[in-house]
């Protein structure tokens, strides 16, 4: 009889170990990346690394400012595109639509969420980049190759829509039905109810969802590398090329091994990414969790 119990215990310890060690991955990642980034932090101050614009690894100049700006521009634009679309869609799907419509729309969102980012990159190169070069830029009297912040923002924006929609839907459906009915009973229209009750009530949740989406957008690599132009100059407009941090890491992984400080710089970039994403995620997950309760 006791061998059954022994199995129960042993399985418990084993599973606990698996759980703990998979959890410690977060910590290990943080420490590992930080240790690799330490050498460059010894040579240059954090402020210097983040504020200097010169990126000349061969001359020991590691300014991350252009890459930070690249990430900010692209991510900001992507969110500007994705938020209104996702919000309208989520409102429609939760407040207005019949289940028929939902059954029709969800598979599309699934496909959008499931497509690999390299495919988005291909799409960007096939459609968006030429569109920027031949239509958008000439329209404002500019001349570009099309590999720009604008192209990156559009591609990333489309990529993040399914995540935002599903988060918004989850948040909206947490609003009690009684609350909606209460305002309907006061004679409010559907849109008034949505605006005054649902949107106001879920504002913190929406913020959390947006922060989460932002962290997703910032880490996206292959799609942006293919459409952003990858020029280490801080962009001044939507029609400039840019070079986001993930693209920097991915593009230079082969060369860095010969120079210790170069490697350290790239790992510092990975660490920044890790750290920002970690903070964003913790923040928004805690808020979302609170809302659910």
């Amino acid at each position, binding site marked *: 009889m006791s061998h059954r119990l022994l199995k129960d215990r042993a399985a418990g310890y084993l599973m606990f170990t698996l*759980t703990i060690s998979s959890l410690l991955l977060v910590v290990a990642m943080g420490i590992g990346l930080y240790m690799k980034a330490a050498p460059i932090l010894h040579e240059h101050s954090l402020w210097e690394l983040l504020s200097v614009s010169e990126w000349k690894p061969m001359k020991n100049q590691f300014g991350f400012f252009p890459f930070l700006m690249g990430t900010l521009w692209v991510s900001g634009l992507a969110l500007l595109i994705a938020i209104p679309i996702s919000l309208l869609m989520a409102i429609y799907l939760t407040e207005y639509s019949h289940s028929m419509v939902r059954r029709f729309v969800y598979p599309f969102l699934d496909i959008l969420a499931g497509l690999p980012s390299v495919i988005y990159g291909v799409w960007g190169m096939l459609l968006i980049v030429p569109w920027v070069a031949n239509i958008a830029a000439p329209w404002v009297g500019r001349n570009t190759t099309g590999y720009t912040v604008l192209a990156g923002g559009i591609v990333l924006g489309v990529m993040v829509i399914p995540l935002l929609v599903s988060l918004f839907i989850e948040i909206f459906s947490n609003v009690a039905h009684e609350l909606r009915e209460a305002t309907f009973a006061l004679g409010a229209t559907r849109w008034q109810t949505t605006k005054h009750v649902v949107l106001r009530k879920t504002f913190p949740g929406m913020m959390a969802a947006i922060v989460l989406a932002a962290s997703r957008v910032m880490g996206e690599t292959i799609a942006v590398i293919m459409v952003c132009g990858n020029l280490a100059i801080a962009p001044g407009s939507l029609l400039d090329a840019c070079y986001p941090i993930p693209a920097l890491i991915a593009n230079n992984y082969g060369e860095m091994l010969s120079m210790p400080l170069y490697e350290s710089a790239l790992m510092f970039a990975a660490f920044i990414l890790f750290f920002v994403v970690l903070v964003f995620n913790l923040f928004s997950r805690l808020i979302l969790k609170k809302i659910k309760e």
Partner: protein
Amino acid sequence: MKGLMYASIALVVYFVASVVLSVFKRGIPLLSWEMVSSLPGGGFYMGGGGGFLNAIVGSLYIVGGATILGLVISIPVVFYLNVYLKAGSRFGSIARLAYDVLFGIPSIVYGAFGFTIMIYFGLRASLLGGMIVVTLLIIPIFIRSMDEVAKTIPTELLEAGYSLGSTRWETIGIIVRQIAPAIATATLLSIGRAIGDAAGVMFTAGFSDRIPTSLTQQTATLPLSVYFQLQSPSLEVQNRAYAAAVVLTFIVLTLSIGGRIIMNRFSRNKIQ
């Protein structure tokens, strides 16, 4: 307002159609049986003959290995979180938060981290390295999506097991059958993410023109094959990238559509 909402839906449907159709339209005419059934010939990346079977097989190896490893690790974790820990356990909620965070960490960071670990142990880019990083990448997806369903297991079901005198461990047969549909969904999700991942394997699996014959050899993957070939200045080579993109898209679409059909089979024993 309603008009705008319709517009947003139309826009999303348009995006899906546009992504899929533009890739297909460009790539399908270039796709040939030779491309998917043969290895790159000499001078392939300058426009020589051959195909990208190396990338297809490499991706299948990595995805297959990572999916199996992922399942082996995540099912016990989900079981532990939901059966061994009492509801409302502090450790449980910290663990769930951590998996949420891990889910959000970009694959390029996984790749960079995996790469430093490999260097630390003196390993080089290899099939094994790629498999491990992709496993780490998909574990949070596995755990989160299975846990979501496991949380809703009726307590009566566990109690039924206990009242028959089973130990906690012996209820695994019940739990696994009950969440079988969730395991299937999670597996498909993970395969989808694993096969499409490029940034994680770029550092860790390397690239190779041949099909790896051991775990320590480098291997090509479909997304990287698309990416690398698109970098080429030669139109001939770029065309192959589009053909590979069609194969990748086709696989992912099949997973997502086929998944809906398979799902019903796994639900047959489930207690509502």
